[in-house]
């Protein structure tokens, strides 16, 4: 399978502080790569380098024709802005010259009811707002989705879990997924590859190879346990 992304000797520094050092990895098209690591290990900075938002050294090579959808971790905005979800999605349709129905399709994909999207964004719960951001990212059929920390466990009762939904969307749209997560049991379940960043080093491989107690203790500095669901092994 061709590579969706190749990263060679990537380094990012802010002043004297080296956040990422000589990082190299590749992501095959259609893969779901989970990026894990303790806080401050540079996971979000890696995403920002990948979209060209911070200066870096090294090589970042996306496949030709790559379109990126990006869902940030948290937004530095006041939630009581006079702005509805539909207006936010409509702005993307306007900028990217998409048909207005594209917003409806994206809302359907992420399972956010249109009547909720017509409310001001301040009226949405945390989980609903994250779905709105995901819908924004999915408009226009990106080939790659970057998702920074989908928050598990904030879904409304009876809703499809965010991770299950992301997997469904990835499979339906043939997306390559890069996901920053701290939910190791969910990573084990949904990722096809894992990149672990920690204290200036990194390791990359299949979940079954990276998510071992020894490796995790080495990376996080403390014993990390997680529960492997039975169905994850199936």
């Amino acid at each position: 399978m061709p590579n969706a992304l190749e990263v060679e000797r990537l380094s990012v520094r802010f002043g004297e502080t080296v956040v990422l050092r000589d990082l190299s990895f590749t992501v095959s098209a259609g893969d779901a790569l989970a990026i894990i690591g303790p806080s401050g290990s540079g996971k979000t900075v890696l995403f920002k380098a990948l979209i060209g938002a911070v200066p870096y050294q090294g090589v970042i090579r996306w496949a030709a024709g790559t379109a990126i959808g990006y869902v940030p971790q948290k937004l530095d905005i006041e939630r009581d802005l006079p702005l509805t979800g539909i207006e936010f999605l409509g702005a993307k349709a306007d900028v990217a010259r998409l048909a207005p129905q594209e917003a409806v399709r994206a809302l359907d994909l992420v399972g956010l009811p249109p009547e909720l999207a017509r409310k001001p964004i301040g009226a949405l719960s945390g989980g609903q707002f994250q779905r709105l951001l995901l819908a924004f990212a999915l408009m226009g059929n990106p080939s790659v989705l970057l998702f920074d920390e989908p928050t598990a466990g904030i879904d409304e009762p009876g809703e499809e879990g965010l991770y299950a939904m992301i997997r469904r969307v990835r499979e339906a749209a043939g997306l390559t997924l890069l996901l920053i997560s701290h939910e190791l049991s969910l990573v084990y379940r949904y990722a096809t590859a894992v990149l672990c960043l920690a204290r200036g080093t990194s390791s990359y491989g299949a979940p079954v190879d990276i998510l071992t107690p020894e490796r995790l203790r080495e990376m996080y500095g403390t014993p990390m346990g997680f529960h492997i669901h039975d169905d994850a092994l199936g």
Partner: protein
Amino acid sequence: MTMPSVSDLVLPAGMAAAAGLIGCFALMRRMALASDAMAHVALPGIALALAWRLNPVLGGLAALLVGTLLVWALQHRMRVPTEAIIGVVFSAALAIGSMLTPGEELIEALFGAPGAVAAGENALGVAAVVLVIAFVWRAKSRLLIALISPDMARTTGIDVPRLDLCFLLAFALTVALGLRYLGVLLMGSLIIIPAATARQLASGLRSMLAIAVAAAVAAMLVGLYTGPALHVAAGPLTIAAAAVFFFLSLAKRRA
């Protein structure tokens, strides 16, 4: 002071509409305080223009453009917190400008003095108003996405630094247009207060833009029409009217 004729109102009403639109995005970008300070930077330009017998509005515009480029460079090149620097630099500009401006002109420069506008200046002013309004209208989706998340804007194909520069230039142009009517001390308020009023009342972006334009134009007309009748300066009266609308909007929201 005499009552303005209808043709004299085109430029101030258009300027107020532009201020309302620009203000909505300035407020949502949390530039409310910076907006006020940025208008102050015009004063040294006005002072130098008066000393060199040039049009004071052009002097103010030149100083605003320098201030704009400074703010933009601070935001994008230096990656330093801008609040303190904006406060210090622009307050210093106000102080220096006050010392340079001759006493008899200072009050007009600070608070505005609407009077007869030469036909050429009027036409240029209206053209600038059209430019600002057209920019906000065309760029509103890009401005909106960039204020929600610059990173999402980038992945949507938006050149964020360039958009920011265009916004700041439109902002500076709007301030320059308002200097004659409101002066360097009050012009920032016509940008921010109507937008703050609209934010209280609006449920979405379109209604916020519409309410801000209506509130700014109404306040400007109140100032220009009732100022002469009440024998008070039009500029302060305009801002007082805008503030009354804001407090009424608070009451409406509580109700």
